[in-house]
């Protein structure tokens, strides 16, 4: 029971925040404080469990291991940055922090799941608050984004669920870590369709290319802090659970799904970054870039070796740090004039001269997305490339290179707009710094550069956490 304390802390802070909101309605922003403290306490508590012996709890449905703890810390980072970016933003509704806490709770549950039941519950707990959060911007775009997200979310959850039902039918258990022992006498005609549907369902959440069309609309229509949570947290949750299901439950059949996922990964990397090229709205651009990055993450899963798993785990943090940095910049720009209009490229005009610090953040974030050396993104892409070559899949490596080059062109366009000399846009002139925004931006920049220059500590962490083969050893 004490192993679930981080989850209990987050859930408790959500409930306490909800109560505080109605019991003492006079104190503004109390729920934000409660949830923030809950997140920090959960992060500290999860960190103290680092050296615990891996074990299965709750009727073998949840695992306590370094993998889950790393995921917990990542999604808590996403949650804290979201709360900070929406600090004092009362027009999002006072329930905002509570919903963020519930969504983060779902992501944390995904991190430790070893049975399909917590996978389903985690994905739903992650998605349901996000539907509401996507609608919390009171504009027509906000409602449309929420509606599209809801319909696609319900559709993909239906696919996922039916896949789970077929897997249950094939193996007579929902605990997917037990599948390798059962697979030999499982009913194959149910097993493969089931696995296929589960992968498709998660691919919707992760935005892999044939299932990606909802992403740009939803990213554009949602409030920026929520987009931040979707881009970072949801991606972490979906990617790690896909890795855990495939690497734990189906490593025996890796030859079959590995190559197929590899093709999807290459397609996703190239198409996502290509579609990012003509975008003028910054959030849409980031949406397509997020699709591209989902492709990079998928390479780590498709290589189905330990290096690939480590590379994927590694890639999550630089990607997330760059994402929260860039979304913080957008958020700060929105705090200027006509805040509800989306930030487009021409809004960045003259930023490099008028607001050099803000421009630095955007440069660091975009270069990390693009994979330029001395940023975390470069190290992440390097490890992915290494994993692809270790797995003897040079095609994946070529895909990474092509995707990176196309992405480079897409990410340089905002920077080019920023350095234009003819005039300063109204938004750049009227933007205001906020203490919470500065904190997020500082963490993002220091983290991105830090991982790029000195990646050894993070490499150590992921090499320990991605070593989740403790189950097979017994």
């Amino acid at each position, binding site marked *: 029971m004490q192993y679930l304390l981080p989850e209990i802390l987050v859930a408790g802070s959500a409930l306490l925040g909800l109560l505080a909101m109605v019991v003492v309605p006079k104190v503004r922003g109390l729920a934000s404080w409660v949830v923030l403290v809950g997140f920090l306490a959960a992060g500290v508590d999860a960190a103290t469990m680092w050296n615990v012996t891996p074990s299965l709890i709750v009727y073998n449905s949840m695992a306590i291991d370094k993998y889950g703890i790393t995921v917990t810390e990542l999604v808590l980072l996403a949650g804290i940055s979201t709360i900070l970016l929406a600090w004092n933003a009362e027009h999002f509704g006072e329930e905002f922090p509570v919903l963020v806490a519930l969504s983060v709770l779902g992501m944390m549950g995904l991190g430790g799941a070893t049975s399909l039941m917590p996978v389903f519950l985690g994905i739903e707990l992650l998605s349901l608050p996000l539907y509401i959060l996507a609608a919390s911007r009171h504009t027509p775009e906000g409602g449309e984004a929420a509606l599209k997200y809801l319909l696609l979310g319900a559709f993909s959850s*239906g696919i996922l669920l039916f896949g789970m*039902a077929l897997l249950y039918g094939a193996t007579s258990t929902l605990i997917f870590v037990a599948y390798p022992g059962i697979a030999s006498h499982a009913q194959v005609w149910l097993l493969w369709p089931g696995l296929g549907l589960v992968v498709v369902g998660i691919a919707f959440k992760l935005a892999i290319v044939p299932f990606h069309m909802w992403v*740009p609309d939803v990213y554009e229509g949602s409030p920026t802090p929520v987009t931040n949570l979707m881009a970072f947290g949801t991606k972490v949750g979906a990617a790690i659970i896909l890795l855990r299901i495939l690497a734990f439950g189906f490593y025996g059949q890796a030859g079959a799904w590995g190559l197929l996922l590899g093709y999807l990964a290459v397609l996703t990397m190239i198409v996502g970054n290509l579609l990012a090229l003509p975008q003028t709205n910054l959030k849409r651009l980031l949406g397509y870039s997020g699709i591209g990055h989902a492709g990079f993450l998928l390479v780590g899963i498709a290589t189905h070796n330990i290096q690939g798993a480590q590379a994927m785990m590694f890639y999550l943090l630089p990607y997330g740090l760059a994402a929260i940095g860039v979304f913080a910049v957008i958020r700060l720009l929105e705090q200027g004039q006509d805040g509800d209009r989306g930030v487009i490229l021409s809004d960045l005009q003259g930023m490099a001269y008028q607001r050099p610090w803000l421009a630095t953040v955007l440069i660091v974030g975009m270069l990390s997305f693009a994979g330029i050396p001395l940023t975390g993104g470069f190290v992440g892409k390097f490890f992915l490339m290494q994993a692809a070559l270790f797995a003897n899949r040079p095609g994946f490596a070529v895909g990474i290179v092509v995707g990176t080059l196309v992405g480079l062109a897409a990410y340089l366009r905002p920077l080019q707009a920023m350095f234009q000399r003819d005039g300063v846009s109204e938004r750049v002139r009227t933007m205001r710094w906020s203490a919470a925004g500065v904190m997020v931006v500082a963490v993002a920049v220091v983290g991105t550069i830090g991982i790029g220059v000195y990646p050894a500590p993070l490499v150590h962490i992921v090499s320990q956490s991605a070593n989740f083969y403790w189950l097979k050893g017994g």
Partner: protein
Amino acid sequence: MTLNYVVALAALLFMIGAAGVLIRKNPLIMFMAAEMMWNAAALAFIAFARNYHDVTGQVMAFLIIATAAAEVGIGLAIMVAVYHRRHRLDIDEISELKG
């Protein structure tokens, strides 16, 4: 033998639901079709649970129903909000964001 029929029925329901989501234009109907896919999964879970004399599948069906209720609550709230803003509900007309 009954198991095969029930699973076939579940698969049929699932496909009808999926086709409904893909073909229909009204978000309300699309949402109903998506819920139908969920219930197809619940039916399959119960059928397998009965076949294996295992309670996990039944628990899963309970969870599906509970989650579906929460999802319907949220979904209808969002639809009411969107409708109030534009007094129309057609996925093709909701095109301010180009997909």
